[in-house]
């Protein structure tokens, strides 16, 4: 009833091209934003902020990165963990070498560095595709983690191989990195930063370059015939995707955990992000957020469910059951809706437009 677009006329090209063309959507988004900025830090405890909201935002950024590559450009990648490690260690070295550099600039530069690495490992995509490419990206995953683990230079010769984020302020007096930061400040910083980057990504995929990615994904030969250069399209997708994933890795090390070792970015991390993209929806920015929320929340729910139900289950068994339920849910989701949560949301919106009438 409330969700009607009748009577909303678009009188300019700008209005026609807007991301949220329907007024109700804009109002809902505004309310959502207000809740996210004011209500969440006010009511959520530090524990919730640190274990749910902060990792959710970091993962959402990584998922956006992978979604650009896999969802929009159709290049399957299993190297996400390696690229996140790149971002984490690049930003660490930068932050240590240039202490006066602002932390946001450090993150962006680390992202740029990761983009370079991504292009390098994206080169095989010019010759191969599909599963062959997926295995090729595994090379990036294993090589990068090995490199950061093996060479002491990356960790400034820390004996344990763990890097600790140096304390940095985003604005004078507002520390966001490591243990010195207040969770609410961290959360707000991430919220703004990730939202801005997501907005950039949304506009990127709607623009000429995003359309060329999608053309390559849908049919590379046809794309080439209509004048899209596969080399540029694929390598730019690798670059932009790695840029986002690198920043996510930097945020992981600096804002979320505070101290991190290369082994935190093992292949499991790659799969985790891939699951977010698949469950959220391939080729959807909103889906990246939904998928990240799902994957972050699910283990927490699974862990607390037996205790809440009062079932005496050993910790070990719980983690095994968690694996089983996780695997089962993935299969279930793929069978029920292979296009992910974003598609479910879209269906719900379409139903809502007609409600309460059937058609």
């Amino acid at each position, binding site marked *: 009833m409330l969700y009607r677009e009748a009577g909303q006329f678009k009188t300019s090209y700008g209005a026609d091209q807007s991301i949220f063309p329907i007024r109700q959507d804009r109002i809902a988004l505004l309310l959502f934003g207000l809740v996210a900025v004011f209500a969440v830090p006010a009511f959520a405890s530090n524990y919730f902020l640190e274990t749910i909201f902060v990792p959710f935002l970091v993962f959402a950024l990584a998922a956006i990165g992978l979604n650009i590559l896999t969802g929009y450009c159709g290049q399957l990648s299993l190297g996400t963990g390696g690229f996140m490690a790149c971002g984490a260690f690049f930003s660490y070295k930068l932050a240590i070498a240039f202490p006066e550099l602002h932390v946001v600039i450090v993150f962006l530069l680390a992202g740029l560095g990761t983009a370079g690495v991504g292009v390098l490992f994206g080169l095989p995509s010019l010759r191969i595709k599909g599963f062959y490419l997926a295995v090729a990206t595994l090379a990036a995953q294993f090589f990068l983690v090995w490199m950061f683990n093996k060479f002491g230079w990356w960790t400034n010769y820390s004996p344990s191989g763990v890097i600790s984020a140096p304390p940095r302020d985003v604005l004078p007096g507002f520390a966001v990195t490591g243990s010195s930061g207040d969770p609410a400040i961290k959360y707000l910083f991430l919220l703004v930063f990730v939202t801005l980057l997501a907005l950039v990504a949304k506009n990127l995929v709607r623009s000429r370059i995003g359309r060329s990615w999608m053309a390559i994904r849908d049919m590379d030969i046809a794309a080439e015939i209509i004048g899209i250069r596969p080399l540029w399209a694929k390598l730019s997708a690798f670059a932009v995707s790695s840029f986002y994933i690198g920043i996510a890795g930097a945020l992981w090390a600096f804002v979320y955990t505070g101290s991190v070792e290369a082994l935190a970015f093992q292949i499991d991390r790659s799969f985790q992000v891939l*699951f977010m993209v698949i469950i959220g929806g391939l080729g959807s920015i909103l889906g990246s957020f939904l998928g990240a929320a799902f994957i972050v929340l699910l283990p927490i729910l699974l862990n607390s469910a037996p205790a809440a139900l009062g079932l005496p289950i050993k910790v070990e068994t719980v983690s095994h059951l968690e694996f089983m339920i*996780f*695997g089962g849910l993935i299969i279930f989701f793929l069978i029920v809706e292979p296009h992910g949560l974003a598609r479910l949301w879209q269906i719900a919106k379409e139903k809502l437009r007609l409600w309460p009438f059937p058609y």
Partner: protein
Amino acid sequence: MNAATTRFGIWMLSVPLAIAVIGLGLQGLAAADSSLFFTWGYFLEVLIAGLLQGVLYSLVALGFVLIFKASGIFNFAQGSMVLFAALTMVGFIEMGLHWTLAFVVAAAVMVVVAVVVEKVVLRPLVNQPHIILFMATIGIFYFLDGFGQTLWGSDVKVLDIGIPKDPLFILDGIFEGGILVNAFDLVAALVGAALVAALAVFFQYTRIGRALRAVADDHQAALSVGIPLKTIWAIVWSVAGIVALVAGIMWGSKAGVQFSLALIALKALPVLILGGFTSIPGAIVGGLIIGAGEQVAEVFLGPLVGGAIQDWFAYMLALVFLLFRPQGLFGERIIERI
């Protein structure tokens, strides 16, 4: 002389040549850099150890190839099938069954798993894009991992079916001290060879094998001559499950049955790239190359960069290889411009 024998001749010539060239190159490197160590006897020893290790990679890769050929599905769960099969077998042995009986029971369990996978996962996902099926097999991977460990516990288990593990020394007339070969690896190689031979006979001479080859060639043509695709898929997954069981027994008695078995599946991926996704001989040769290559690289080149290059060497080898021959050594050439 027909084409096959010519090709065989080329292989017989080029393989020792390649080994000699690599050996010479390493000798040159060792002469230039004092931190490296090289003797021909040691080189051969490492090479043979690597080849025998490669046989085990091939065993895992075989399971991948079988399923990929028959259904075009890249079965990521092969590794967890290896783990699950080995855990089941150990579980039954611990119940007091003789290992031959336990093998039969574990094989039966793998057939049940295959049928369930076909019914629950594959059938509803028919006609979906390959990436979706690939993701579904990752789901199976997680599920089987958790299921196996919930059933049988997650401790490292010893699997001993009486394979000799004594070191042997061969060729001690030619090289000083002889070449050390592990008897266990030799047995593993023999089992691998026997398994491949059995599979070849199965595919070549039985009715089901013919149907399997028909499905691998062309799904629709196979359907149109009345081959039941779903039954064939269940059979292929069962065969892959039994191959996984054999691989699991070999790896399990070598390194103990533990969670890390599931991860050796990842090592089978570069093997597949090298050999081609659709070729059984490719899986064998690829496994041998990867096994030998990573051992030799680790021992003779590892010290240059601080060691542990085993983790990624296989992938890098595969990556470089892909740039020159994207379809693998024996894979079907798909003519496709990218």
